[in-house]
């Protein structure tokens, strides 16, 4: 990373977009937004616009890839060519391949995989517009899509990142903070069991700073979890109110 003299946090302690260090970006979530997929969800977090869809459980072809005692979870994280400043080639990049893997591994612990042997559950994530923290927002949406598809789960998985900019530990990094900051720590959580299903760090932190960042990210996760549940209920409560 080259030296940039831009200040990411001003004298009042506010960030480039006016947020305080422990503030989340504005989040909007919708569930069941696509008619063909078995389950779907859409999230906007800051300028991120991400769509997640689930197909399955369904029979797996080729059959030899199926597992005899459990379902196979497949995940594809993909960014649209127009989602970033400089057009991105539609071909899967190494980053997308790695993210597809870590996102899948973040969602797997939440699903009762052994309920549906010899099938596959496919999770498709499309980033329509990217502004930092896409893997976290993707996990939050994908988990809702799985619930919307009626797939039995232990808990929803929620994700949020924390990081370090200008010597301050901050929550929910946006793109510039991600690029110019000194560290980015994405965390995914299953809140009721209080366990971490995704954890990465890119940058440099002392062990104390790392602990602080993980704690802050987990706090962020818990706030977003409330929004996830609300979004899920919102889809069904409106119908419920017909009679009661």
């Amino acid at each position, binding site marked *: 990373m080259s030296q940039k003299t831009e200040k990411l946090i001003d004298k009042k302690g506010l960030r480039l977009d006016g947020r305080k260090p422990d503030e989340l970006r504005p989040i909007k979530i919708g569930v069941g937004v696509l008619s063909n997929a078995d389950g779907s969800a859409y999230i906007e977090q800051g300028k991120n616009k991400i769509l997640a869809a689930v197909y399955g459980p369904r029979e797996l072809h080729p059959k030899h890839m199926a597992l005899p005692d459990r379902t196979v979870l497949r995940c594809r994280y993909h960014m649209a060519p127009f989602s970033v400043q400089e057009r991105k080639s539609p071909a899967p990049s190494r980053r997308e391949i790695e993210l597809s893997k870590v996102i899948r591994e973040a969602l797997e612990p939440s699903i009762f995989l052994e309920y549906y042997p010899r099938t596959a559950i496919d999770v498709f994530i499309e980033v329509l517009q990217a502004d930092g923290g896409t893997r976290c927002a993707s996990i939050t949406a994908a988990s809702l899509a799985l619930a*919307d598809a009626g797939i*039995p789960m*232990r808990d929803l998985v929620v994700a949020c990142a924390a990081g370090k900019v200008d010597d301050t530990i901050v929550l929910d990094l946006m793109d510039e903070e991600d690029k110019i900051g000194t560290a980015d720590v994405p965390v995914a959580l299953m809140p009721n069991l209080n366990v971490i299903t995704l954890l990465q760090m890119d940058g440099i932190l002392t062990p104390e700073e790392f602990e602080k960042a993980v704690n802050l990210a987990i706090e962020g996760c818990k706030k977003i979890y409330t929004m996830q549940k609300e979004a899920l209920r919102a889809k069904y409560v409106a*119908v419920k109110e017909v009679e009661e």
Partner: protein
Amino acid sequence: MINLPTFFERRQLVTPGDLIAEGDYIAGENTYKEDNKIYASRIGLVDYEDKKVNVVALRAFYIPRVGDTVIGTVVEVGFNGWVVDINSPYLALLRASDVLGRPFRPQKDELSQVLDVGDLIVAKIVAYDRTHDPQLTVGEPGLGKITRGEIVKVTPTKIPRVIGRKGSMISMIKQETGCQIILGLNGIVLVTGKSLEDEQLAIMAIRKIEEESHTSGLTDRIVQMLKEEKAKREGMRNESEN
């Protein structure tokens, strides 16, 4: 009622991961138990059956059960039978010998003449386990190829609501619309009536039940709706005749 902590009341909406009860409870449908706590595993409404905690799922898919009557579509003519889509994660198999009522003779029997891709059938599940796809039979009265009628897809967990207590709901719809209705437990419903309009009426009722399945007083509202629709149609018919 047992005096142990519960965090949701009957018919309250829960989402996956919600803690419903703690203590000496049994995990019923769409729930799981961990560390003496019962959690929801699907979105649905809470229901207590003595010590058992159930969640009536609002979103679920059909998992085959032996003995279930299902309606499916033939998607492939195989070499000694047919592959049938029964609206489930698993494709079902119907053996040629089951349909022909005798052993299958590959040189003489042309399977696609009996059932072809796209045909609808009413069948029963005779075998299913974790290692094999479900097997179907059409060898009972009332089963076989469907030649007319309209198909409606419903979330499988709502089929019991369409049936109603002691069949009250489904009998009422049949009466009011004059249609024959076959309910596949896999969420596929076949409606056969004297006219397309009658069939559409029945379908409308079924769709309404699906949307409002978790509310009470539904039977009365459906009767009301059917009566109103029929009156509307009468009115339109009278107009066009004048």
